[in-house]
Structures are given as C-alpha cells and as structure tokens.
C-alpha cells in the first residue's frame, strides 16, 4: 500500500544522519578522555558483536527494546504518544511472574510459557486500557495519563512485592514454577553467561505481526488513517475513540510481553525495577525506527549495542559516555523525523 519500499532512502536518512552526528560527538568526548576514538569504537564493537557473550547480551537487551519500541510505535501510528511503556512493561513482567508461580511445576515449559506470555499481555494491556478508555471517553490527554500511571503502577507493584510477595531477604518474588524459557546458552555453550533467550524469537514475530496488522489489515488501515488525518478517518466511518482505545491496549500488551524477557528468560522471578528505563527507551527506539517494525528491530539493536558497548569500554572511558551518545542520537532524530514534527504541530494547535 502507501508505505512502499520506494521510500527507503527517505525513511533511513534521518536516523543515518543522527548516527553520524552521534559519532562525531562521541569522537570529541573520547578525545576529551585522552583516548583514540578508533580504539574505543573498536573495543565497543568487539565487546558487542565480536564475541558470543557480548552478542548474546546485546540481543537480550534488544529483545525488550523491540517490545517497548512497538508499544510506543503502534499508538504513535494512531496519533497517540504512549509514555507508559515503562509501567506496562513492569505490569507485564509482574503478571508473567505471578502466573509462573501459580502454575504447577509439572507443566511442560512451552505451555507454561504460553500462559505466562498471555498473562503478560493482559497485564500490560490492562495498564494501556486506562489511558485508552480515558482518552476515548473524556478526551483526556494520553501523555499526562500514561506518565502519571507510571508512578502509580510502579509504586503499587513495589508495594505489593515488598509487602506480600517477596522471597525472604530480597526485593523479588520467589522463582516461577513453570514457564521458564530456554536460553541460547542451553543450545550453544559459547553464549554461556549471556541472558539471550528464546523471547527474542517472540519479539521478532511480534514485530512481523505488527507490520502485517498495520499495513495489511483493515484494523491497521483504520488505525493509521486516524493517526494521519482523524477528520478523514471519521468521515470514513472509523470511530476515533474505539481506535484510540485499541491502539493503547495493543501498545500496553506489547510492552507487557517485553517483561517476559527478564522474568521467563533471565531471572525467573519478578524483581522491583527490572525495567530500568527500557520502557522510556522504547520511545527513542520507535522514533529512530520511524514507527516501522523493521526500523524498530534495527533501532533496538543500535541502542542495545550502545548500552552493552558502554560496559565493554568502561575500563578506559566511563560507560556514561554511551548514554550521552544515546541521548545525542535521540535528540538528533527527534528534530528530524516528521512524526515528531507532526506531534509538535498537533500539540501547539491544541494549545492555541
């Protein structure tokens, strides 16, 4: 349909420029630390893509980012800014953890994992439903509601784990009885120590499903129309409120499934604060990935590389430098991509 491969160059140019700017800024910073940029970037690549452990860690980090990136991108396609991926991710992880604890231990892992994944989607989707319903019913700003909900949900989950569900002397729950997902290390010993697990396949399939939904189905056709031109969509028989609700629930569910990566694939329990900003980082992933599932996969790999690479080069430059680089990429993309400009225009129009 309209989103054709012919506009590849147009889609890829802003992120490419952003990356180039980040590289230049990175060079300057590295020089300021008295190191050679070539050496540092070489170490970064070696520590992320150069060995199986680093690569596995990069993939592990990318897995959650794909989910939270999609969680921001789907609502953004409908013209809504979902800032709530952080708490939707936590709620999904919590729901998966609780489901895994409650399941009987004899259940084969694929069935257990399926139940836990569904629980995660429901958990995240439920959090997404709140701003969705408030937006559809009262026109409440989804930006405000999702931000505020982050505080409420995270505080509530912290309380319930600390007060009721924690394992002795810890801030996490007990281990799940069923649903643990195989790690790559179980298959190939080269990945030993890395947290990369089969959730990656799930995240990639979700990205593919999102692409199909957005560009091949009636629901996606209507959702994108609402984002591009709400007036025309409405005139085309699309009910705006219903579409907004659907987009935010879907976004919440996608973020929720991201929680599976940690809970089923890595630690096998829910732990306070495991998201550690991955939900917010989903905003950057969606913007850099231009709200396209394929772009989101690439952007997730990029941010995962920078994040893991920060650890790899920590011996000679502080890992905070990589966080600065991530911020530079985000800023550069933010000023250049049309989606952001459209949102800014829309919000200034609403304010006027």
């Amino acid at each position, binding site marked *: 349909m309209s989103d054709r491969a012919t506009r590849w160059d147009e889609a890829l140019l802003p992120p490419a420029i952003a990356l180039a700017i980040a590289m230049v800024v990175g060079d300057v910073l590295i020089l300021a630390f008295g190191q050679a940029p070539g050496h540092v970037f070489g170490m970064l690549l070696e520590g992320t893509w150069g060995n199986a452990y680093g690569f596995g860690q990069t993939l592990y980090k990318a897995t959650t980012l794909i989910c939270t990136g999609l969680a921001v991108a789907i609502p953004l396609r409908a013209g809504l800014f979902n800032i709530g991926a952080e708490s939707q991710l936590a709620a999904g992880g919590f729901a998966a953890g609780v489901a895994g604890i409650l399941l009987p231990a004899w259940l084969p892992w694929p069935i257990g994992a399926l139940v836990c994944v569904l629980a995660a989607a429901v958990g995240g989707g439920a959090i997404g439903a709140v701003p969705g319903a408030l937006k559809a019913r009262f026109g409440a700003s989804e930006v405000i509601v999702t931000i505020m909900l982050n505080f409420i949900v995270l505080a509530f989950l912290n309380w319930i784990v600390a007060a009721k569900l924690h394992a002795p002397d810890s801030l996490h729950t007990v281990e799940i009885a069923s649903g643990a997902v195989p790690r790559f290390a179980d298959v190939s010993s080269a990945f030993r120590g890395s947290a990369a697990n089969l959730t990656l396949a799930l995240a990639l399939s979700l990205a593919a499903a999102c692409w199909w939904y957005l560009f091949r189905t009636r629901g996606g056709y209507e959702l994108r129309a609402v984002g591009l031109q709400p007036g025309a*969509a409405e005139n085309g028989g699309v009910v705006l409120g219903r579409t907004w609700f659907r987009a935010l629930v879907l976004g919440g569910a996608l973020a929720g499934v991201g929680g599976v990566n940690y809970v089923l694939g890595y630690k096998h329990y829910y732990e306070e604060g495991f998201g550690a900003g991955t939900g917010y980082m989903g905003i950057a992933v969606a913007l850099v990935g231009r709200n396209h599932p394929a772009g989101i996969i690439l952007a997730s790999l990029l941010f995962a590389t920078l994040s893991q690479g920060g650890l790899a080069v920590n011996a000679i430059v502080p890992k905070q430098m990589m966080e600065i680089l991530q911020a530079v990429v985000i800023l550069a993309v933010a000023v250049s991509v049309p989606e952001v400009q459209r949102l800014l225009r829309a919000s200034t129009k609403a304010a006027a």
Partner: protein
Amino acid sequence: MTATAAIQLTGIAKAFGPVHAIRSASLTIAQGEIHALMGENGAGKSTLMRVLAGMFTPDAGTAAVEGRDVTGWDTKAAIAAGVGMVHQHFMLVPTLTVAENVMLGREMTSGWSLDRAGAEAAVRALCERTGLVVDPARLVADLSVGEAQRVEILKVLFRGARILILDEPTAVLSPPEVQELWRVLRTLRANGGTVVLITHKLDEVIDISDTITVMRAGETVGRMSTAGTTPADIARAMVGREVALAKRVRSGVVTPTRASPRLEVRDLCVGSNTRTHAVDRVSFAVQAGEIFGIAGVEGNGQTELIEALAGLRRCESGSVQLDGQELSGCTVSERIDRGLAHIPEDRQERGLVLDYSLADNLILGRQHRYASTFALDRVRVASNATTQIAAFDIRPPDGTLPAGALSGGNQQKIVIARELGGAEWPAVILAAQPTRGVDVGAIEFIHARLRAARDAGAAVVLVSADLGEVIALSTRVAVMYGGRIVTIVDGDAATAATLGSWMTGAARAEGS
C-alpha cells in the same frame, strides 16, 4: 507603457522539494491598475504572490517593484516598500479592538502607554479616506466576516501599502459584500494604488479587473486586457482547452411516482463548538431526482447541517430519515451502507488521507467491504483503483501515488469517484462545496456527475458558497441565515439578487 511598472516579475521559478510550484512565471503590473491573477488551484498563483510579498525566495528569476530590483527580499522589506498581502485566512486577534488589531506590530505610544485614542483616530481617518467602513472601537470578535476582511485590508494599508495583494478575497463574502469590496478597490485605484487579485472566479474578474494574467501548471500562459476578452477566453487559457461553463440546464426530474421523499429532515437542531443552535429547527425534504441547493454566507449553519446529516456531529433534536428510515443514532458507517454519500467541504481534512495512496483513499469508508478477518484484499483494492481512475479520469493515473501529490481538482475527483463511483448510485448525496478550489475543467466534470446522479434517482443536497453554482444546478434553492432556512425558492426563479438579499438577512419571511 512609458511609466515604470509597479511590479515586474521575470522568469520566476520556485520548487518545494520535488514539487515545482512555479516553473517559469513572468508578470507585469502597471501602476494604478486592478490586476487579476487567475488560474486553477495549484497553478502557482499564491506561491508567485508570496514570492512578491517576500515570504518565499525564488529559485530563479528576478522581481522588481517600481523599477527597483527586490529579488529575494523578506516580508519586512516588502512592507517597507509598500507591498502588502491580505491572506485568505484572517490573522486577527479576536479579543482586541479593530484599532488595536490594525496597529499591532506598529503600536502608537504616548510615553509609556499605548495611545489608544490616537490609534482610533488614525484608523478612523484611514477608513474615511479609503471607504472601508468599520468602527475602530469594536471588538474583532463581534465583526462579521466581511468586516473582518476590511480590518485585514486596513492593517495592510496602515503599514503604508501602495501595492495590495488579495488572495481569494471573495470566498467568504455574500454578493452585496463583494460589491462593497469592489467599491473599495476602485477607490484605492482612484487614489493611485495598485491591486493584485488572486481568484479563480471568472465573473469577478470581468467585473473588477483592468488586466488579467492567467497561470497554468506553474507558468504564466497569457496576459490580456479585460475589456477585450470573454469568460470563455479566460477559461480556455486556464485549462488549456475548450470548456463548457456552468449554465442552468434543467431543473431536474422529480419522479412523481415516488410518494415519500428520499431524504426528510424535520425540526433538526445542531450545536456547534461555539453556539448551541448552529442549526435551528431546520426542516426540508428532498425527492428522488432532485438537487436541493443550500445557499448562504459561510458560517450560517450549513457546515453543521451537513456534518449532522453525515453522522459526524450530534443532533440535539429533530429527525433525519433516509427512504423512510430514521438515521439519527446511526454511525457514519451505517449511513454509508444505507446509501448516504458525502462529499465533505474540506477534502484535505475530511475527504482524504493525504499520505495514503490513491487506491487506499478510494476505499475509505468502504474498507469493510474489502476486508477479511486477517487482511485487506489488496488485489481488489488495486483493481477498484484502476477502474475508478479510468472512469473519473484522475491524473496522474497511478493508484500507488499518495493523494497529497495530486492537484486540487484531481484530489476532488478521488472523493467524487469514491462517493459516486460505486456499483450502485447512492440514495442521498451530500455535496458540500464540491467544486471549491477546483479548476474549471474539473468543475464541469463534477457538475456532470452530480446531474447524472440526480437523473439516476438520487436525492442531492448541494451546499456551495458559489451562488452561480447553486443556481445553475438546483431544482430548488434554500437559503440559510443564522442557522435557519429562511426561504426555499424554485430553482428557475432563483437569481443572485433575490438570494443575495435573503443571505444577508435583509429580506425576511412575512409573518416571522
């Protein structure tokens, strides 16, 4: 011409990305004339004038004002040199008075405070000199559209403009207000001012202008003296071929066999964002084979009425029936399925998703007919596009192009094709400003389609700011004023003069 031209544009080109808005435009405007710049929508008229007013820098070509080369100047310099532009959309602060709006950006002060009395006196003097009658002490929010436009013109003149550019100034005016504007422009001309009028209305140009320049596809294709030309000549220059101008043909065939009307509206009340009764107890019925025209100055409830009928706006009370079935409570989608077609007044906001392809736009509102559970049937979407593009002569004929890349006329053809091009004729067609911003050639085409739908037995409701269009097409004409239908006259008896007095509220129904 021995005197230096007021404006001399030579070989101007301006592109926005890949779109060449102007390819090669040259324009000569003499001192003290009223010059009409004509052309289809998208021909580049507004862009050319924005280059002149300093808003855009041209890619090529030179601009000279009163013999001085001013190529690539900015708006500040343009204003200082006496070139002022009155835009299509008003840029006024509604909470300030007329005088305050006029002096905005050039505030008169006495000591530390604004000199309101001085400003009012200055504006009043300007009003008297130019014949632009408006009370400087009134709030802009309280003004009519025609008065607001006068304030816009005053603003430009207050800054010392001697060359006045007006972009489609009559779009929002009633016939008497248009005459008033012409009087003002003639006064300006008499005082040595130069006026450039951007328009696509042929009769206006014949009325007011001294000279005409026609633009087509980003180029200036003709310059003629108004006295020696006819509307047909201008139309031919605008489109590049012969066109049939809208003439009153026949008032339509009301099928007497059909006992009940196809569309019946009873005591309909609709609110708007600012008023509770934007539409106030409106009743009318439209028969099969009839075009029911609604004339009126914009903002008298026509928009709200059509949106309510289309299901986009909530009705406060009253009933709407299509073929005897109640529509209130039906969603937009249900109305479409019952045979209600809607050509919205703002095709860029309501009619089309500009970033969607032609093919995707051609199914908007009917997407459920192309969908299975898991996918849209892309083959059928594409074949529908191929059929419609051919049947409605949409150009360029490429279903994968984004709708936003097409000209205004072709964009409107997409909407018309979607609403009228289905396998069955719609039962009721709501056509709001169906030819606004559309070129002469496409107007002819759209009128023919509406007549064909009428002849096929559809009931057509036509709202248009173009009185000539309403008179030419309608079986009966209603006039809306202040949210009410103040009169309904037979199409054959409707004239601009009689409708005009109803439109301004000057004429009133007896006994009310």
